[in-house]
């Protein structure tokens, strides 16, 4: 299914989403500016695949993650810029001598089933996430936690094994608090209880109401939410596996919000007077990747030659129709870790040839580029099949690199085969993206030499001591400003050595019913402030 896959491809990048933090409520307690006139109505959003389980960290698919974000709260939360703000914990402090965080819990918060949330629930939740037998897919993120202790009903302490300055943003503001009383068998329920998996109960702004497999999932407003109820009465997620059909539903008004419109459906949505399009940034970078441990890609000058020889400006303007910015490294321009002094490489065939010559490659009179081994250079450029944008990208690369004398064969693979070959380092070169980060970016899983496949996602087999040092310094630096400086330096290093062929940061386009208001989208989620979404004429929609 082409369209099916096209959407899968988007998640394919989003395999990295995950710890982006749960949805914030946008504001602190009591929600200033709450307007009762905005209350009412339901919103129907679309998803290409059904959720898997609605218990946090038991799965990593985007449909489940999105809904879990609405159903649960964590101890802390993040604002739109990624700063830590209170949530179930109102106050917290850090004792660096004893590596201990102390959290004061919000009093009177009730789970959706009416029971009070207390320190026991917090201790229980962390014991689920940290248990080595847990199916928590993010278990390694909890590695630095030694113990979680109850001090009294409304105070807990988290003791670390070692320094972990990023734990607040990358773990504690993402780890949902589960109701202990719903898991009588503890870990067995967390891992295996299908009833709980499909009837989640949290403290979040939305309560789970109904789930019809491969049809829809209904959440409804938690009217007793500690931060004030969300404006919408219901959020319904409909499963629409074909992107044409998703767009037709939007055009007909049967769906109110499509997170990411397909390029091919955009023109139709743009023409429709009842809809609006919101273009937004996503914390993501797209790149041309390769197995960097093998020739020819282990040669920096070869990589630079190909980067100069790829007309990415045309790609952005013609394939992405301008809805992308050129990139110079893995940092999105909207995060502080981006180093503004680093500029994307221009398209320059002459420079490309210079670098290729430096790398020992020469273009002979037959128009072919010959390598140091005396053989003409031939590359296979792959993408995941069904992704039309990437198909076009590959075709442009084929034409551009032909000008350097390189014969490029374009090839597409079915997604699971693509991933398999990617992890085994068998793809010659490919176009891929990496997404889901914000100002709390932490790139070690992707660039560190300790994260090589099959366990890690360093699918480009980058093994660079300098990069490893940047990554670990960043993780251990407690001062935020210094931390940012480290990644800025790494950004420059990665650009100077063209660690990957940095391509662009694409923007996404949401298709929205024009009466649906108040939407703010963050770098890591399109549903950042769904508690504040409202209908223009809400009273008519009750």
């Amino acid at each position, binding site marked *: 299914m082409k369209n099916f896959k096209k959407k899968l491809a988007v998640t394919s990048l989003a395999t990295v989403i995950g710890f982006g933090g749960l949805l914030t409520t946008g504001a602190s307690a009591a929600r200033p500016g709450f307007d009762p006139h905005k209350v009412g109505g339901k919103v129907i959003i679309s998803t290409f695949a059904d959720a898997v389980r609605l218990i946090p960290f038991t799965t990593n698919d985007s449909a489940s993650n999105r809904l879990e974000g609405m159903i649960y709260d964590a101890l802390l939360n993040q604002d739109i810029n990624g700063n830590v703000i209170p949530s179930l914990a109102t106050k917290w402090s850090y004792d660096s001598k004893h590596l201990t965080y102390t959290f004061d819990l919000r009093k009177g918060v009730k789970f959706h089933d009416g029971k009070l949330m207390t320190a026991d629930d917090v201790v229980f939740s962390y014991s689920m996430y940290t248990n080595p037998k847990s199916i928590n897919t993010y278990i390694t993120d909890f590695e630095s936690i030694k113990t979680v202790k109850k001090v009294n009903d409304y105070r807990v302490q988290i003791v670390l094994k070692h320094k972990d300055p990023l734990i607040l943003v990358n773990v504690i503001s993402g780890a949902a608090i589960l109701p202990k009383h719903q898991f009588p068998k503890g870990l067995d329920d967390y891992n295996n209880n299908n009833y709980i998996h499909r009837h989640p109960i949290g403290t979040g702004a939305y309560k789970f109401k109904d789930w019809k497999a491969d049809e829809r999932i209904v959440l409804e407003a938690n009217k007793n939410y500690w931060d004030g109820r969300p404006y919408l009465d219901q959020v319904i997620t409909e499963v629409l596996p074909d992107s*044409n059909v998703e767009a037709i539903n939007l055009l007909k008004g049967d769906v109110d919000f499509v997170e990411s419109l397909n390029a091919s459906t955009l023109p139709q949505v743009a023409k429709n007077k009842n809809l609006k399009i919101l273009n937004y940034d996503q914390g993501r970078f797209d790149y041309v990747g390769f197995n960097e441990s093998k020739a020819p890609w282990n040669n920096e000058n070869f990589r630079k030659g190909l980067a100069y020889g790829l007309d990415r400006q045309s790609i952005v303007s013609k394939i992405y129709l301008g809805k992308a910015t050129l990139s110079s490294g893995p940092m999105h321009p909207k995060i502080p870790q981006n180093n503004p002094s680093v500029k994307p490489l221009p398209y320059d065939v002459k420079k490309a040839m210079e670098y290729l010559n430096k790398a020992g490659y020469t273009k002979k009179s037959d128009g072919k580029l010959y390598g140091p081994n005396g053989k003409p250079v031939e590359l296979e450029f792959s993408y995941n099949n069904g992704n039309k944008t990437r198909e076009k990208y590959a075709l442009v690369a084929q034409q551009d690199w032909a000008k350097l004398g390189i014969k490029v064969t374009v090839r*597409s*693979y*079915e997604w699971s085969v693509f991933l398999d070959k990617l992890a085994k380092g068998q793809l010659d070169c490919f176009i891929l993206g990496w997404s889901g980060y914000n100002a709390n970016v932490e790139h070690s899983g992707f660039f560190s030499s300790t994260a090589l496949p099959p366990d890690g996602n360093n699918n480009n087999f980058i093994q660079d001591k300098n990069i490893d040092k940047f990554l670990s310094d960043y993780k251990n630096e407690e001062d935020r400003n210094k931390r940012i400086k480290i990644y800025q330096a790494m950004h420059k290093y990665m650009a100077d050595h063209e660690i990957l062929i940095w391509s662009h940061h694409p923007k996404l386009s949401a298709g929205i019913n024009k009466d649906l208001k108040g939407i703010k989208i963050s770098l890591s989620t399109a549903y950042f402030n769904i508690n504040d979404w409202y209908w223009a004429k809400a009273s008519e929609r009750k």
Partner: protein
Amino acid sequence: MGLPNPVVNQSKNVNIRPQETELRYESKLAVTWKRFKKNKLAVTGLIVFTLIVLIAILAPWISPSKPDVYDILDSNLKPSAKHPFGTDSMGGDIMTRVFYGSRVSLTVAMLTMLCSVTIGVIYGSISGFFGGIIDNIMMRIVDAIQSIPTFFLLLIVASLMVPTMWSTIFVISIFGWTGLARIVRGEILSIKRRDFIEAARATGEKNKSIIFFHVLPNAIAPIVVIATLDIASVILSEAALSFLGLGIQPPTPSWGNMLTSAQDLTTVLDYPWAPIFPGMFIIVTVMAVNFIGDGLRDALDPRMKQ
């Protein structure tokens, strides 16, 4: 063949029985041709199909452009003198790609048919000729394959291979032979007991030569009909696999992947020539082949035309 599209080659039900008299092969051919010629639809089908085959063969000389030339600036152009069928969303010339696509789609269809026929005939012959427990086991396997929604299996196989023209041929033929095997077996069972086979056996001929020189020629009629109709169904299977992203991969053009990549809202509504031309080629070819198959069936089975 577990196809998503209803297909004509009801292999299991083709109504052909061995002819009662043993005609000499040449004269049989002449009689068949004479009957076939009378069927206007079949003749039209044959002419159209021949034209399409010619287009495929002559593609490099009659195409206005080259299949691997794109200009994204020239995407989605209306049909014009320069681009008689218009251009697609990548800026490729649709006529050129459809013509070259004919090569790919027809090659896939023909080779798949050949594979299915070969496997089916060998399998059916062995099963029918030896009979007994061998036959029993072999036919239970055919039963099993025919009871599975083979399209699911086909998807599994397709997803395990790197999609190319060869993998597509493999994938479609791997489950496409069962109907034919059953027919061939049936034919052989019924012919086997007849006098001339007994005679051949009595004169000491080997099994292999009995199958090839005496039995198979008598089963040729249903094989030809099924093989013909198979071509049509393979063309549709290729399109279906393409739709699921498991067929021949662009930029190599095939009718199926061209139709599929034109299957999006904006293209269908605003640039309809992109799906129409590959779609027309699929439909016309499939219809032409089915006409031929029907004509052959009638011509080869005299009882149908009384």
